[in-house]
């Protein structure tokens, strides 16, 4: 059996590691962006809920105070 040359194995290992690192970074960034969007949506939902509740609670005041 002809054994594979050592430098080819080393180059393959280095390339594999680099690809893994780049892939991991890209995946991490994508995940972070998605998380950020989710947080924004949650915050907006809470704000909307509070606003609707406030409007409902204060409808009578607004009528009388106006």
């Amino acid at each position: 059996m002809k054994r594979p040359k050592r430098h080819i194995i080393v180059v393959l290992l280095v390339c594999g590691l680099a690809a893994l690192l780049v892939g991991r970074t890209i995946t991490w960034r994508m995940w972070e962006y998605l998380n950020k969007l989710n947080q924004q949506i949650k915050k907006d939902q809470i704000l909307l809920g509070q606003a609707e509740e406030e409007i409902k609670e204060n409808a009578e005041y607004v009528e009388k105070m106006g």
Partner: protein
Amino acid sequence: MLGIDISEKMIRVVRLRRRGSGFLLLPPLEVPIEPQQADDPVALGKRLGEALRSRGWYKKKTVMTLPDRLCFIRRLPKEEIGGDHTKNKGRLHKTTVENLLNTARQTMLVSADDLVLDLWTKGRPLATKKPAEVKREAVILLGAAQKSVVDFCRELAVASGIKVLSLELRSLASVNGLLFNWHEASEENIAVVFLSSQQVDIAFMDVEGLFSLQTLKLTSGSEGSVKDSEVAFLQQLPRVFNTLKLSDPGRVPQRVFLGASSRLIGSLSPLAEQLRQKIGIEVSICSPEAGLVVAGSRKEKHNRPSETASHFPPASQLPSVSQVPSALHTPPTVADTADFQPAIGAALDGLAATPTWFDFRHPQGKFSEKKKPVSWKPFVFAAVASILLGCAFWLSLVQQKITERDQLNISLNQLQPELEKIAEAKNNWHRFRSYLPSSQGGDRLSYLNILYEINQIMPNTGEAYLTSLTIIGKKSTSPATPSDILITGRVSKGDVITGKVGPGEETTVKVSLQEITPAKDSQSDVSTGFIARLNNSNLFNKAEQAASLTLDVTDNLYPFSFSVTCNLRRTEKTTAK
């Protein structure tokens, strides 16, 4: 180059060096195998490693023989192997390997799982040949050995830590150890026989080299006498030659080269003579030291191979087995060297001096089955497709989230005007709160309702204004404060409060009432004054003047001061509030 020979009771190590056209044999080494260690490759390996280290041979390259077990060497025509075995850089196809394993199995009578193969063609092993070169070869030599034995030697080599280049069949190594006796033979067909006390190795060669190697067992146990071995040898060997004469008369050897181990080397001469008489072929006795320079010997010169039995020293001149010195650094005798014949053959293999050798450290056979060519393209396509699918899924998810966020923002923006109104209302409330006593508790919306209602009922600012508004809230039981609400203020005319008004005022009041309670206004024209409007309200009842109007001449615009009390209507709704 080290040659290591593993026999049943002893590991023998020789070291050969090239010297000119010959080889220098350094004092060999023997490591006895204790019975309890015979089956333990790790223990044996450690012991061998220590012995080599003590001699300073630890880092030398080594060829090791496989211990005496079943082995098989047969020359096969290319057609017999079948299939295009030249594909994949000399590696064999699975079917070809199976055919070869079956061939070896029929002779060795062991299962195919316990067999390893190695192939050899003229010049070098098949694995190192280019496909084009293999195609040109007419014959291929097939060697087979037991896998368990090969594994044993591999473990031993790992445990000892020595650099083992290859593993050789012991039978072939024995024959190769006698190389300098037969490799210049003038005959076309020869046979090389190496006789040991338990077995005999017979190699048949023609002009193209080795074509068959057979091993015959002479005695069943290791304790058999020399006489028994000789008798068995003289009985079995002629049969082998006769079989060859019948099956392949064109390759019957014209000369037999006979070598032996130290135990039988004394009786080699009469054995050769008897064999010659039985098979009718000339027999030459091999010198164990032929072609070698033995280090430390007095002459230290090349030994020439003996041509015939008569040229070899008679047995009486050779030392007997008991006379072999135990100290290994002393120059070995001829009889000593005879025992190292397989080790010398292995070392010659490593030095590429022998014409035929196998390498069972890197055998073919089962191992080549794993080497199926696998295309990388499907894997790359699958990986790219997976990455693209993942990206598409992520983008769709992001798009969905962005849409959701935008919708929420639009909804929030739509609510902004409402929120602004609330903020304004809150601001107004804070302004009004400064008029309330800080100690007053209660529901602010109830106050707001009362204030809102009074604001609606109150006459115009030009006619009246409030100086105080007291909201007690609960109906008091004390006679001093019988009502819930006390309103005091100043008024321009008394009629504005009591309702006894003229036509002019009536119109004004009517306008005010229409804005507040248009239903009641349409039913009756009587209810006109502030008190009447209080009584008509949904929020108040029992409105009356608490005291008569008081005249204050100093105030021209609002000369009368008034005081009105009323109660809150206690409906279910207001009670709940």
